[in-house]
């Protein structure tokens, strides 16, 4: 009898923060002490019953968890094939999965005693989620956001300001998420003594990819229980959009050891992967080093990071979390791409047939599920992570429709 070597997914990353060849800690020497401190605090508290209880309590009473697992019957019928279930992260306080992580990191910030938090944001959801927890804890909050994203996500910018945060538009480079992250890292290395950097995705230097994943895993743990309760069995497929990849890893990770569950990470295909104008490094990139970790990147023949394109600001990023790069290389998760127009169709379809308006990021996952479902049997189950709600994107959609709101 042949046995396949089993991988202990919970043992990743290794002690130095590597997922195979990916991850690590590629930052200025000045930040190493802050990262060591963060790792030390996190290692100490992550299994501490008091910390876990405080985190769980906030998730229940402040965020509103558990989020429902909703059987999208009409969408499933229209697609013809597998039953599509939506993990409703859009119903969380602040409207996306991002808050799971900011709650966790704000608790860690409390343990470090630092009174100032900074964050980068693309679509603005992580910025809003950070400004929200900062308001609640009375922390000074500065959010870096690409100038282009400030334009296309004006509603979220105003929300952050109402919450008391300072939003700094970043005008360097492509003026999107990558440049916001550059600027946040520059702020952090300058103010490291009094500042806690709340990174919004499973990227950045170790231990961020690990701790953001751990905080987001509540999505997959709930989905697993809910699916067993509602269908009597595990799902057959999981689908989630991948920019940096925090909502996807949150859903996938608690299922990684279940070989019967196939997983699909959906990257932003932009105008089409073949056009080069996209944000799909796992489909069309190579391993490199950016923002503190080694991972798949979109770069030119000389190693310069290239500008990405996606209709969705939250996916408009040339890198991806290192664990995803590893999961791709070992073949555990399949990474696919959905183009802008397909995502827009997914947005409209879900809005019309289920009365649920998804974020443009999550619309990529919806669009892929619509392709996948007809290839599966009626008694099979797909869970789609509906990572955020679409209110923030209404101006973008209206613009595409040629309507002035």
């Amino acid at each position, binding site marked *: 009898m042949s046995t396949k070597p089993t991988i202990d997914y919970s043992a990743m990353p290794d002690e*130095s923060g590597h997922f195979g060849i990916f991850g*690590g*800690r*590629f*930052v*200025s*020497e*000045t*930040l*190493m*002490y802050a990262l060591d401190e963060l790792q030390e605090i996190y290692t100490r508290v992550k299994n501490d019953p008091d910390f876990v209880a405080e985190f769980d309590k906030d998730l229940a009473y402040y965020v509103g968890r558990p989020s429902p697992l909703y059987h999208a019957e009409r969408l499933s019928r229209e697609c013809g094939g597998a039953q599509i279930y939506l993990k409703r992260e859009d119903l969380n306080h602040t409207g996306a999965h991002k808050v799971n992580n900011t709650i966790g990191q704000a608790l860690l910030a409390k343990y470090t005693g630092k009174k100032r938090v900074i964050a980068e944001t693309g679509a603005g959801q992580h910025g809003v989620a950070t400004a929200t927890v900062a308001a609640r804890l009375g922390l000074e909050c500065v959010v870096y956001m690409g100038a282009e994203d400030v334009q296309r996500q004006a509603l979220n910018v105003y929300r952050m300001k109402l919450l008391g945060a300072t939003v700094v538009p970043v005008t*360097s*480079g492509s003026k999107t998420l*990558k*440049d916001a992250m*550059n600027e946040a*890292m*520059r702020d952090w*290395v*300058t103010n*490291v*003594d009094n500042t806690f950097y709340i990174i919004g995705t499973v990227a950045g230097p170790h231990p961020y990819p690990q701790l953001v994943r751990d905080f987001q895993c509540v999505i997959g743990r709930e989905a697993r229980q809910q699916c067993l309760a509602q269908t009597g069995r595990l799902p057959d497929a999981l689908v989630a959009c991948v920019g940096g990849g925090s909502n996807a890893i949150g859903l996938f990770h608690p299922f990684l050891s279940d070989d019967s569950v196939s997983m699909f990470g959906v990257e932003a295909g932009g105008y089409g992967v073949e056009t080069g104008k996209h944000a799909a490094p796992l489909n069309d990139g190579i*391993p*490199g*080093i*950016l*923002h*503190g970790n*080694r991972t798949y*990147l979109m*770069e030119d023949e*000389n*190693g*310069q*990071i*290239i500008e990405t394109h996606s209709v969705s600001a939250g996916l408009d990023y040339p890198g991806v979390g290192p664990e995803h790069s590893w999961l791709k290389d070992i073949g555990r998760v399949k990474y696919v791409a959905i183009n802008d127009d397909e995502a827009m169709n997914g947005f409209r379809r879900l809005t019309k047939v289920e009365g649920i308006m998804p974020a443009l990021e999550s619309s990529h996952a919806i669009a892929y599920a619509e392709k996948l479902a007809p290839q599966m049997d009626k008694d099979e189950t797909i869970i789609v992570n509906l990572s955020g709600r679409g209110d923030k994107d209404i101006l973008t959609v209206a613009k595409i429709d040629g309507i002035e709101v």
Partner: protein
Amino acid sequence: MTRYGLLFENLKRKQEGAFVPFVMLGDPGIEQSFEIICTLIDAGADALELGFPFSDPIADGPTIQKSALRALKHNTTPDQCFEIIAKVRARYSEIPIGLLLYSNLVMKRGLAEFYQAAHMSGVDSVLLADVPFRESEPFREQAKKNKIDHILIAAPNADEKALANIASSATGYIYMLGRAGVTGAENQADCDLSNTLGELLQKKATPSLIGFGISRPEQIKNYLLAGAAGVIAGSATVNIIEKHETNAEVMHRELALFCQAMKAATKL
């Protein structure tokens, strides 16, 4: 003996510190870049720090970021950077040349090939702004194979253990940060480095150069008295290039004046 070794020995005998300007290769153009470097050397620079432009320089402030963008605007490639260095090396055989760049440019070319190209063009040292000591092993290995010093950074918050690591592993010189943060002349170096410098001297570490926030001759003496072997000025040098981008004559004159003033201040 290496070029750095000879330089530091020579300066010590003369009771001088080293003045090391930094410029970005390809800024404001390939040919101009070569001429700028010649002006700096002729005006008394003891060694050079040269940058390869990168799209996402997270350790750099606005001045060096803009410098990289100017160089990238006309598609400066790593190959062209190595060609400029080879030209400099052909004209100046003794001056130590250090590279300061980001790791993705090295990864893209492949470590072995990158360090080989660096060696062939006449490079003496390589500093990777986003590779801390703990991630440095594969880079150090290739550097060593190609007789290149892998430069280690001493952070202002370095503890005793970190300093011990640096003292035992550093070759060429130690890049000691004058303050936390990113590069830039706007914020002056403000850390008292005398303890750190003393500790490294006591451990007989390779000489230290102070960088980040060095822009004026008056800053130099105290560092030298505290045990530094010299200073590196990046943003202050690049500011002159930015300011006089369209007037080469004034730019070269100002660069020479700045370099001479800084060099004069290194003489104790």
